[in-house]
């Protein structure tokens, strides 16, 4: 679905590239998590996938990004955005309307969703994100977390084939964050939507993503199945990426016991593992 070949991008007037030599393939229906320290280039990578780079941000662009076979350089941004839905890191600049319902309508109207289909799309997005009660509220009266949910709902209503999200839970409490990730996973499973999400909350990411890519200083330093990447938790720690505590627990256990154990990514798995060991 997404195929990035040897992508190097330097923002105009910047001395160093924000991304260098990125190669990454995301299959149709995958759930990819991206992690890395601040300034690693995560947002830049998300922009490249959605086509905002190079259409809006100019600079030196080498390599290629294809989404569903379309080269993002040759395809107009409007055509790409029918395919790729994007949630920005800065929600306030993403929201265009002054009332929640209007914000959801905006994309639906523009992309020509049939009139009779619009009410069900609206309700679907509002219900799944859990903001049905905010429908008639003004954006100005919402909290940061609520705005974030509105931004996510407005993109989900469009049912894109690919969903890219840049730190979508940055302003959310742990419970809402988990709810959003559950929703992303459900959309991924039910509709086969490919999900690419940048996230700082590593525990959540590891639990929900099938694939992980670790970015550092514009390069992908690790990529692969979530478990495989986490299996080298010592190397990740060295890169400054905090691993989930359950993963560290497995590592410590396997070091102490001197045998290799399967990596656990959630509390349930860790519990099973420990119970198994105790017997």
């Amino acid at each position, binding site marked *: 679905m997404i195929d990035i070949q040897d992508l190097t991008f330097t923002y105009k007037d910047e001395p160093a590239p924000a991304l260098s030599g990125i190669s990454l393939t995301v299959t149709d229906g995958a759930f990819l998590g991206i992690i890395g320290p601040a300034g690693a280039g995560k947002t830049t990578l998300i922009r490249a996938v959605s086509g905002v780079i190079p259409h809006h941000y100019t600079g030196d662009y080498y390599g290629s990004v294809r989404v569903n076979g379309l080269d993002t350089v040759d395809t107009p941004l409007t055509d790409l955005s029918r395919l790729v839905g994007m949630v920005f890191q800065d929600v306030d*600049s993403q929201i265009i*309307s002054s009332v929640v319902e209007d914000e959801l309508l905006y994309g639906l109207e523009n992309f020509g969703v049939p009139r009779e289909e619009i009410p069900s799309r609206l309700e679907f997005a509002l219900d799944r994100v859990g903001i049905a009660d905010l429908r008639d509220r003004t954006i100005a009266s919402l909290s940061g977390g609520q705005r974030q949910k509105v931004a996510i709902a407005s*993109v989900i209503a469009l049912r894109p084939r690919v969903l890219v999200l840049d730190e979508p839970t940055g302003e959310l409490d742990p419970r809402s964050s988990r709810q959003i990730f559950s929703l992303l996973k459900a959309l991924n499973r039910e509709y086969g939507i490919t999900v690419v999400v940048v996230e700082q909350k590593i525990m959540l990411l590891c639990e929900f993503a099938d694939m992980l890519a670790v970015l550092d200083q514009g390069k992908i330093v690790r990529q692969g199945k979530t478990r495989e990447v986490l299996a080298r938790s010592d190397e990740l720690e060295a890169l400054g990426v905090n691993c989930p505590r359950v993963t560290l627990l497995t590592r410590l256990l396997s070091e102490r016991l001197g045998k290799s154990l399967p990596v656990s990514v959630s509390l349930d798995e860790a519990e099973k593992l420990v119970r198994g060991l105790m017997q």
Partner: protein
Amino acid sequence: MRDLFQYVPGTSLLHRLNPVTKLLLTVVICVAAFITDRLIFLLGLLALDLLIGFIAGVPKKTVNILKGLLRIALFLFILQALLTRKGTPVFWIVTDTGLLTAGKVVLRLMVVCMPLALVLAVTKINDLANALVQVLHVPYPYAFTITTAIRFIPQFLSEMDDIMEAQTARGVEFDAAKGFRKLGMILPLCAPLLISSVRRSEQTAVAAEVRGFHLRTAVSGYKQYPFQWIDLGAVLFCCALIAAAILL
């Protein structure tokens, strides 16, 4: 100040008017204020503005707008009264003509500004933009620019607050300063604010584009804005107002 341009939800007669009719009413009040040359008529228009505010169910806001305008008006009044040379002196260098023209100038200012602010209180910005595009066939990019600018005002002000708070925490005493000194302290903050606003508006442009900005046409709107009987009533009222301004 924060919520000066904020929409206030409601179901009043004014909320239910077609957005285009509301704009017409605003324009007509402004035009009437410039056609007429009678002080009493201007006072009548001001009363009409207030009446509109009360019918719209936003009395507090109306009064606040009026208070804000009065301050500017007082300043202008004094300036105008001092600068007019014609007429017979009433006291010191102030003449009767001076007082009259000054009164008209500030009344006009208030009459013209109030409905502009009130329209935004009783109309969602999106409805305004949609109606402009659908009914008056204003090109969508223009409508978008105007509405985005209006939407940015509260954001801009709250960012300004954030910066001032941060500076206060660093020991800058905004509260202690008054008048020009305070202005001198605030002005340097405008540059960073402007830069961040420009950056933000660029991002908003991107956000609009990835949700089909370029595909939007006059028929894209889901909501329709039909004209109703109350709109006809309002239009008739507008005609009467213009006629009165010309005749009286």
